């Protein structure tokens, strides 16, 4: 089954073409990274999957529907700043919004509310955030906030998870932790994951596929084809090395946008 497919797609913002001739397919249950230099249109690709960015040409299908029509089956984590310290809303309540936040009115006590509370507790447990879910979200660390936001995106049991730079601004242990969490969700909950990444190293071992966005278009490929010195150097336009560490893992070195030493 296909989760996402684009056919000759083109996106334009304010008359400028961001990318064109994009044809790609993501199968259900896959863990796919979206890579590319800053400003190449990675977030635009995610917004196009959600139907928030209309296509100027070509066609797309998301979970068997046109983009935007299956959003209730998609969990979305936008690229973001973290919550301000003054945001004193409990983490669990932020997670709950992912379940029924779009519904009009106020949550009333009753069977539906109890079921919602149970689901929220379950999904918080899934991301191992139970210990701090009752604290105000603004007081939590970046990694803790990110786990709760992933829980929010998972609340409605989505079939597709769109994560826009979820590892950005996390320290190394947290990057590894969140990457492993996303991988286990992908495997155990059978959720297709499309993850926009700045730094490919924390997720390199988990990927089923890579979509790389650069030079006004996007191409997909198997990780072993894309994660090579030649391809990455051409993609980013700077010399990049792909090394094999002593434990057999690949490590990407040299791209300012591919690992932590970038300057915004």
């Amino acid at each position, binding site marked *: 089954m296909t989760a996402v497919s684009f056919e000759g797609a083109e996106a334009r913002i304010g008359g400028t073409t961001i990318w064109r001739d994009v044809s790609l397919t993501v199968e259900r249950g896959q863990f796919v990274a979206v890579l590319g230099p800053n400003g190449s249109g990675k977030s635009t690709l995610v917004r196009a999957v959600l139907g*928030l960015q209309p296509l100027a040409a070509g066609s797309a299908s998301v979970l068997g529907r046109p983009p935007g029509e299956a959003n209730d089956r998609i969990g*979305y984590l936008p690229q973001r700043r973290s919550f301000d310290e003054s945001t004193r809303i409990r983490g669990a309540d932020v997670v709950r919004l992912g379940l029924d936040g779009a519904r009009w009115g106020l949550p009333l006590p009753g069977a539906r509310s109890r079921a919602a509370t149970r689901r929220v507790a379950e999904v918080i447990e899934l991301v191992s955030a139970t210990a701090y879910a009752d604290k105000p979200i603004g007081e939590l660390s970046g990694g803790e906030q990110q786990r709760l936001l992933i829980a929010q995106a998972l609340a409605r049991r989505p079939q597709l998870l769109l994560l826009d730079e979820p590892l950005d601004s996390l320290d190394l242990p947290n990057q590894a932790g969140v990457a492993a969490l996303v991988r286990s969700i992908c495997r155990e909950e059978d959720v297709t994951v499309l993850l926009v990444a700045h730094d490919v190293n924390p997720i390199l071992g988990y990927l089923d596929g890579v979509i790389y966005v650069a030079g006004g278009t996007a191409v997909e490929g198997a990780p072993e084809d894309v994660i090579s010195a030649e391809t990455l150097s051409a993609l980013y336009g700077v010399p990049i090395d792909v090394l094999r560490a002593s434990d057999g893992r690949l490590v990407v070195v040299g791209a300012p946008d591919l690992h932590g030493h970038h300057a915004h």
Partner: protein
Amino acid sequence: MLAQEFMRNALVAGSFVAIACGLVGWFVVLRAQVFAGDALSHVAFTGALAAAALGIDIRAGLFLATILGGVVMGALGDRARADDVVIGTLFAWTLGLGVLFLTIFTTNGSGSNGTAGVRVLFGSIFGLSTTDVRISVVLAVAAVAVLAVLGRPLLFASLDGAVAAAQGVPVRMIGLVFLGLVGLVAAQATQAVGALLLLGLLAAPAGAAHRLTGRPYLGLGLSALFAVGSVWLGLTLSYVFPTLPPSTMIISTAVGIYVTAMSLSPLRRLVG
């Protein structure tokens, strides 16, 4: 104290104004729109005095100006929030217009002096008529009804606009309606505590509630409770000590609650 009609009017109208301020204020604080509330108090002053200068009902000018002001700010959206200089300049000019209307009113007006200006700036809760009371009850009920419908998506849009939009919440429209509602509540509060002090009733009880609990709906309730408590205690103090103006006492109580909540912040762990 309750034998006096002016006191009963003040208590009833004040309570309903406070409920509306407490509930709307909780969202104002969450959305970091306290500055917008401040701007609306300038608009309230000018709107009321424009009506006075034109010889029409002050309330009509007040409500028209603040609701319109709120909607215009909402329409400007993020751009309005981004540019403090534009907003600051615009609202200083608005206040300047208010002074102009005050001058027109006092020189050509119906013989009265500057008391209208003082009433608008500092409120006149002991001078409310039965009609004023009825209006404030109806408006408070309307504000609560709007919030009851908007509540959850408004919370979602305030915390997480991009995700809410992806799930089909009309984020922009909700922001617009909300600022219109802030305008309505600001106009109501102007009558109770005046344009200069309404911000205190909008921000202080809500700020205290945010300090004490992270549960959104409990927080909303606490905020309304604190606002009503401020009005009751403020009115009582002002009745017992007639030299103390009621608006001063109401705002002082609200500020007192906020300061207490700040120093009690460790209690938050208990309330959740």
